[in-house]
């Protein structure tokens, strides 16, 4: 019973990360301007301190890093759900 709460939490986290990972880069994120800053300022500081810039950075780094682990984890969960119900 204790484990059920934990499993639900895990599912929620995985679903959220999936949602972030499958957003389309050019069709969606570019449209609303949430792509990473393309030209780092030459000699000037990037606009890194604003909330939006950090959010954009976070989203893009999650997408880059978590793609492959998400494939593995999703496969595990699919097998678990199919075999063990």
């Amino acid at each position, binding site marked *: *019973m*204790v484990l059920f*709460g*934990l499993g639900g*939490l895990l599912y929620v986290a995985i679903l959220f990360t999936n949602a972030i990972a499958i957003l389309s880069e050019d069709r969606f994120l570019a449209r609303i301007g949430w792509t990473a800053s393309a030209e780092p300022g030459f000699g000037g500081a990037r606009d*890194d*301190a604003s*909330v939006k810039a*950090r*959010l954009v950075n*976070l989203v893009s780094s999650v997408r880059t890093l978590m793609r492959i682990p998400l494939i593995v984890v999703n496969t595990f969960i699919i097998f678990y759900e199919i075999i063990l119900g």
Partner: protein
Amino acid sequence: MQRGNWNNPAPAHSPPLHHPVPQHVSTVPQLRSPPPPQPPSQPQSAYGYGQQQQQQQQQQQQHQGGPGPAGGAYGHHPAFGGFMNDPTAQMATQMGRTAVAAGQEYMEANFGRFVSVSALKHYFNVTNFYVVNKLYIVLFPWWHKPWSRQQRLSNNGQDGYYLPPREDINSPDMYIPMMALVTYILLSTLLAGLRGAFHPELLGGTTMTALLVLFLELLTIKAGTFLLAISSSSQLLDLVAYSGYKFVHIILATLISELLSHLHIGGAWASWLVFMYCFGANAFFLLRSLRYVLLPDQTGQGVGGQQAGYTVARSQRNRRTQFLFVYSYVVQFGFMLWLSRA
């Protein structure tokens, strides 16, 4: 005495000690000290075999089940008194002992890597005086004056470290939050039992809920710290401790409201009043304490003085203050409500 002296020199001859093998089964196992090393024990057990065989031949009516002659090494099942003489039992005991020792070493080595035990010790370095005063501050934070934590330069003079809770009343500890957490779990389960709605999964469920709340609060603070670019040097356990102080308020609110409803004083509004007071106390306490975590430059002294020339834009400072207020009041209200209702 039947065999020659070609094995043992004269003084080391195994004396004719015969441990009496009782014929009845004693219920209390006689634990002896470990038997002497191998060579003298062999003749002993052989002697024991011989004696038992003798006794068996003498009493032919009783079926001993042939424990003596049957299976020399492992089948030796006399009564409990003689089982430590068996070399196999000795070997098994030694293996067990080695296994337990190895397991303990493994645990200590790996546990020390995950959680730094010395950092934990700092949080449990409390005194009675500290606990009582801290509880007073937590429940009545309105009149407490200096909220800043004191620090002291370490030996190499470079980085300062915070004083332990023993010497600084403003330092967060883990003793009160841990005790409050366990008390909250037991208290809510007890009250559920008094209402007649107890089942054992309630304990686990309450624990998971409380830990989930702690985790979500930690996540909120970390997300806020990251998004608002706050570079604070506070430890993770500090934040856990600050989140754990709310359990004191929840315990108090739950107790008082249960008492009031039991004595039929007031109604639902009385328990709401108590809850609002406790929520206010918790929010004010967090506001004052987390100000030094979330707004590090307002104090005028960074830890170690590395942020001497660091200025923050006014809009950013406003945003951080807003975040602090929202966290202390709105977020805490939601969590306290959740924990009191569950």
